[in-house]
């Protein structure tokens, strides 16, 4: 009898909760002054090592914009949601941001799968989506469409820049180790294709595909030592690359085979490695501390100081992407003289250039893809005994990126496959 009487009360409570939630969780503000951008990224769990600095950069850029009067006189506002590294959570967040919060634009992603999922939704909802952190070239090329712009680097550019430098080295026999998923395949395919283009006598001696998140690489190290390769490229990244380097070092791998990496130059990997860092490795990286960099880009030191004052930490590549994305988005709206989706798309399609403390970034109109400067460096130990990048060489993405024609062909081929 006690149970019977509790049922109605509690069901009523649940229904009331539903109504209260519906009433109070309406859009945060009426359609009005701020330009609102829904940002979806991974803010819990293990991706936070990348997304926290990125978010700081983004907010720093937004603050600068707003302090200077905003965009078209309106402040720019980011509303954040967590995708928990799951594409379906990202779609749910996108639905809420567009349908409920009524944001003007979508932004974000770190994982390529998430980026593609949001992109598919954006196309369906006819909302412009600025992919701000994830790297896959598919976003604006194979799976590209009208409603997606990519405000940072894509794999094609920075891997080709790396391959361009690698082609100047005297190595013909190459091997690789790449995690067995889309990004790993993307990196290897781009690298070896461009390397062979520049250096036709290059030979592939061995391929290694550890699973993503592998913890024990000793058999791969052994295999590489036996491969007769003169150099190898690693697309392994993050904690996995730290483990790989620590495991490979005592086997003497880096002395026998030249190490080229797509990511070991990033501070999230170099700093923990400390004295175990792979000295001499060739890798891309944002070496804001390098004397040559600062001489070439006089505004860089000031930007770094501003970031450090804000966050009490040193900036990362992701932080620069966040910062640039905020400005690129604002610029597009400025040029469109409106926050209306179609007008902003038109402005993006015309293309434009912007100067950042680290060089010129081009927003290319034919595919709405950003083209930033590219750097390669060599891992060295600095005077304080900390591993850093030195011998920085700078080129620009525009010298290596696929042309608009090539992109058009890629899109056509992908569309054919879908039929």
């Amino acid at each position, binding site marked *: 009898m*006690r149970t019977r009487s509790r049922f109605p009360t509690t069901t009523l409570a649940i229904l009331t*909760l539903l109504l209260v939630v519906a009433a109070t969780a309406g859009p945060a503000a009426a359609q009005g002054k701020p330009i609102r951008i829904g940002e979806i990224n991974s803010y819990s769990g293990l991706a936070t090592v990348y997304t926290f600095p990125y978010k700081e950069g983004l907010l720093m850029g937004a603050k600068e914009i707003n302090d200077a009067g905003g965009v078209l006189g309106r402040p720019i506002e980011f509303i954040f949601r967590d995708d928990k590294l799951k594409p379906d959570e990202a779609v749910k967040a996108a639905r*809420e941001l567009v349908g409920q919060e009524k944001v003007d634009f979508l932004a974000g992603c770190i994982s390529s*799968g998430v980026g593609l999922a949001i992109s598919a939704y954006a196309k369906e909802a006819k909302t412009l989506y600025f992919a701000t952190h994830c790297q896959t070239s598919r976003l604006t090329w194979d799976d590209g469409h009208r409603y997606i712009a990519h405000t940072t680097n894509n794999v094609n550019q920075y891997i080709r820049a790396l391959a361009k430098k690698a082609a100047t080295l005297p190595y013909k026999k190459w091997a690789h180790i790449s995690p067995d998923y*889309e990004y790993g395949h993307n990196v290897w395919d781009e690298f070896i294709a461009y390397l062979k283009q520049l250096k036709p006598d290059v030979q592939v001696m061995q391929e290694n595909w550890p699973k993503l998140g592998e913890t024990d690489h000793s058999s791969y190290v052994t295999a590489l030592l036996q491969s007769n390769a003169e150099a190898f490229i690693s697309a392994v990244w993050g904690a996995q690359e730290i483990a790989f380097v620590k495991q490979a070092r005592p086997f003497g791998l880096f002395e026998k085979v030249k190490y080229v990496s797509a990511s070991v130059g990033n501070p999230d990997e170099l700093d923990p490695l400390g004295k175990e860092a792979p000295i001499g490795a060739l890798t891309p990286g944002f070496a804001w501390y390098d004397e040559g960099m600062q001489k070439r880009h006089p505004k860089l030191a000031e930007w770094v100081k501003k970031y450090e004052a804000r966050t009490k930490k040193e900036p990362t590549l992701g932080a620069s992407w966040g910062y640039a994305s905020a400005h690129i988005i604002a610029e597009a709206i400025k040029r469109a003289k409106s926050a209306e989706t179609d007008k902003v798309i038109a402005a993006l399609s015309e293309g434009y250039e912007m100067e950042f403390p680290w060089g010129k970034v081009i927003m290319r109109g034919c595919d709405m893809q950003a083209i930033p400067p590219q750097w390669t460096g060599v891992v060295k130990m600095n005077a304080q005994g900390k591993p850093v990048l030195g011998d920085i060489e700078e080129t620009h993405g525009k010298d290596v990126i696929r042309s608009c024609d090539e992109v058009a062909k890629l899109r056509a081929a992908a569309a054919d496959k879908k039929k």
Partner: protein
Amino acid sequence: MSPARWLGLLIVVLAVAPLALPPFFLQLLTEIAIVGLFATAFNLLMGFGGMVSFGHAAYFALGAYTAALLVKRAAVPLLLALPAAPVVAAAGALLFGFFIVRLSHTYFAMLSLAFAQIVFTVIFKWKALTGGDDGLLDVWPPSLLKSPAAYYYFTLAIVGLSLLALHAIVDSPFGYALKSVRENPRRARYIGIDVRRHQLAAFVISGAFSGLAGGLFAFYNGSVFPDFAYFTKSFEPLTVALLGGVQSFFGPLAGAFGFKILEWLVSRQWPVYWPLFLGGIVVVVIVLLPSGFVGLVGGRLWRTRPSKG
């Protein structure tokens, strides 16, 4: 008011919801319905059958991918693609279940996990068919069902019918035989019940409805990815059923409702803390609320066994 009247009231409320709620909430309710179906199907095994599976994501994913592939690659209309989802999922459940039901307890759970990981690997690696970790994109329902309200009604109808079917199964002689197997397999065998047959049948039914939930989810989400089959997805129906109460038929559904609302509210404010919050709730519920939310609500209705905690 009798349970039937309450059910009637609930149905009326759900039916008129699109008039009062903005589209996002309809979508949230749609998702809750799908997760509720998945969790109820899962609970057929766990609460009623006494078998814990760590690999139910496999059947969910099989259903989702079947529906998505038929629509995308074979241009099959949704009304034919969706029924195919539970069929393929059931086939998978039959194949794996044959081996899995021969084990018990932790070993049962682990073998189910192993098979789920195998399904994940196949989906992940067979890029030509499944798109690998790029997933299959643009899997939308036809324009008739595309609006949030339309898909909401569609999902409610399918989930409602499924729940009726599942309830009928639970209340049938088969269902009672299953419960007796859970209580004491040896005694059940002595009175002539083929234990393995019943367990396998329950496994297949559970897998089938999980696959149906997967199919519904594919069109709701608009894309399918290999992580639908990854073992962490298997913990979702488990947690949801637990929170709602595994001893009652509607427990998982109530759990789905509570869980999804909580997740939405907490995650948008404090994303970093959501896992902490969820973990905390799980701990609190297990320690303090043996019968889950429904126990709190007094779900003596449709209770399956005396409160044992």
